[in-house]
């Protein structure tokens, strides 16, 4: 048995037993969806449709409908891509890295944040695909044998690395998520009564039995997948950063990019998890499983990664001066004081200054404040990518080529559309999938459940005596 110290706050509050966990998590699936769900999915559905419309218009007309110009040939598209990939980092980090670190509090958030990861990576993948213009030859990004002679994909190119990184990350993340879902689908399968639901969850649960050998395999597979996903999660955002850092463009080429991008990704990912989970726990009444301590832990992660990102900003700024390379120094001076000073200011305020408020215990345990701050961080991280991408290239080496980027309605439309699609997918997930890992939560009930720790309902030390008896 795992002995947990008394000074640790219980992770599952109230007098819960195994059955209660099943009931609490499955209740929203079995009961009728609240009206709020229909309202939200309609609103985001409209966004999504609008986005799809913009994408169709873009594909039919050409990339020219974006605000790109000869100098700024990458702007919102890649900003959104990096932003979404970044958000897609929290889920795997929570389920893989925190699993390796044996952080039990992850169980309150891992399922939902993995779902978020998968949807976010889908949204991210959309941008390079539509940027290709000819969506129907999108499979050319893979090195497939072909009839054009020696037509291979250039393995030296970071963009090709990205193809591999994102598709590996997406598919492995999906498998990891689904393997965890199978036992919980089986739980639903074994209790729902409606024939259609029974059939659907029966197919989804792959005939899971839950016998000892299956669990033995399950645990090892989870562990090995976590071990694989951990370097994978590092590699994905590192490779995204290589898109920029392998270049010779001042402001893009800097060696700190890989770990700093990873840290920024975790930062924004956790902020998105906060946003989603704060709503979810309220709507589904999951306060017993996801309480203030969990929120506080996530806020500490946000504080830590935000500070790492801050250190990286300052490092870049300092080294640009220290390097003595005038182009490098100018790139950073221009970022902070040039025509895009406002985006730099927004980035610094949202990403470096605001998370520092989390040092205060009062603020980091305040849910309203957390919700607002999470939104601020997400905005800040969008601006970070915008600052890196656009401010580094809008002033070319020749002043006659200097330019300024103005987004068109299609730029905005596609972005808003991805937000819409993302939330629609997430709402569907929340409605039909178990949002907490039922089986995993049951494994920590005895060590981290309040009733077992404090023994209420059964008196202090109930659990220990229960154990001794047998």
């Amino acid at each position, binding site marked *: 048995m795992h002995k947990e110290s008394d000074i640790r706050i219980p992770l599952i509050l109230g007098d819960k*037993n*195994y*059955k209660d966990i*099943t009931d609490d998590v499955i209740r929203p699936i079995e009961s009728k969806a609240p009206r709020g769900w229909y309202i939200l999915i309609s609103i985001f559905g409209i966004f999504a449709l609008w986005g799809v419309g913009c994408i169709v218009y873009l594909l039919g007309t050409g990339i020219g409908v974006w605000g790109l110009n000869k100098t700024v040939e990458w702007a919102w598209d890649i900003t959104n891509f990096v932003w979404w990939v970044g958000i897609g980092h929290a889920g795997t980090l929570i389920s893989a890295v925190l699993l390796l670190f044996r952080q039990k509090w992850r169980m309150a958030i891992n399922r939902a944040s993995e779902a978020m990861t998968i949807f976010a990576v889908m949204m991210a993948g959309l941008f390079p695909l539509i940027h290709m213009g000819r969506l129907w030859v999108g499979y050319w990004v893979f*090195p497939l044998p072909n009839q054009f002679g020696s037509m*291979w*994909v250039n*393995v*030296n190119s970071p963009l*090709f*690395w990205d193809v*591999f*990184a994102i*598709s*590996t990350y997406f*598919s*492995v993340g999906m*498998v*990891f998520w689904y*393997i965890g879902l199978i*036992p919980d689908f*089986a*739980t639903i*399968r*074994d*209790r729902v009564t409606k024939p259609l639901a029974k059939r659907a969850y*029966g*197919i989804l*649960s*792959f*005939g*899971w*039995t*839950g016998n*000892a*050998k*299956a*669990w*033995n*395999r*399950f*645990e*090892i*597979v989870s*562990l*090995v*997948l976590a071990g*694989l996903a951990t*370097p994978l999660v590092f*590699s994905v955002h590192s*490779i995204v950063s*290589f898109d920029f850092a392998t270049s010779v463009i001042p402001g893009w080429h800097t060696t700190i990019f890989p770990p700093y991008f990873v840290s920024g990704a975790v930062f924004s990912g956790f902020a998105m998890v906060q946003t989603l989970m704060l709503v979810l726990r309220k709507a589904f009444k999951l306060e017993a499983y996801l309480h203030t301590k969990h929120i506080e832990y996530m806020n500490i992660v946000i504080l830590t990664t935000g500070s790492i990102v801050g250190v990286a900003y300052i490092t870049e700024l300092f080294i640009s001066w220290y390097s003595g390379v005038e182009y490098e120094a100018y790139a950073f001076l221009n970022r902070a004081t040039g025509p895009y000073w406002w985006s730099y200011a927004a980035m610094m305020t949202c990403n470096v200054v605001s998370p520092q408020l989390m040092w205060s215990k009062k603020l980091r345990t305040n849910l309203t404040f957390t919700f607002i701050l999470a939104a601020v961080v997400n905005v800040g991280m969008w601006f970070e990518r915008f600052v890196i991408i656009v401010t580094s290239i809008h002033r070319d080496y020749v002043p006659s080529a200097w330019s300024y980027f103005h987004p068109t309605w299609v730029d905005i439309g596609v972005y808003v559309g991805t937000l819409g699609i993302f939330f629609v997918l997430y709402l569907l997930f929340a409605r039909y999938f178990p949002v907490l890992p*039922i*089986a*995993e939560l*049951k*494994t920590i009930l*005895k060590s981290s459940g309040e009733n077992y720790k404090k023994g209420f309902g059964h008196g202090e030390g109930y659990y220990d005596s*229960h154990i001794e008896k*047998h």
Partner: protein
Amino acid sequence: MTDKVIYAMYDDDDVTKEACQSLVDNGVHVADVFSPFPIHGIDPIIGIKHTRLGIAAFMYGITGLLLAIIATRYFMVSDWHGINIGGKPNFSYLENIPSFVPILFEFTVLCAAHGMALTYFLRNKTLPGMPARNPDPRTTDDRFVVEVRLAENSNFSLDQLNDMIKETGIVEIDEKTIK
């Protein structure tokens, strides 16, 4: 050949573990345990060997790495020999290896993860559309079932087994005849 199976149901994981221990101590062979979540420490008691899926993942990973080496070498060094891309002509694999490393890594992970996941599904016989095979629907909720087969315990009679099991803090007991 028909066989009698006894399903003993418990309502606690630790009780289940203790029960298995006492049955095994008495010389009973426990066929399987069904539970809603993994019971830590039960595998050695009922004699379940450690899975080798980890080793399988390693082998898949090595395969992926080799495939990626062969492919990148073929594309860049054999087929595109000497083409100068970004000031880095592809004359030798080793000299340009830094720009192949990301692909090597990703493909290794891809093969290891998916290879292992597929093996896992096949070994567990969990595939889309498979019927549920747990003895009681409650075993995915809050009940734990220990399965004991008569044929595997030829030293005992059915009644002896039943008596022994009834002493272990069960909540329900069930017998089934299987073919």
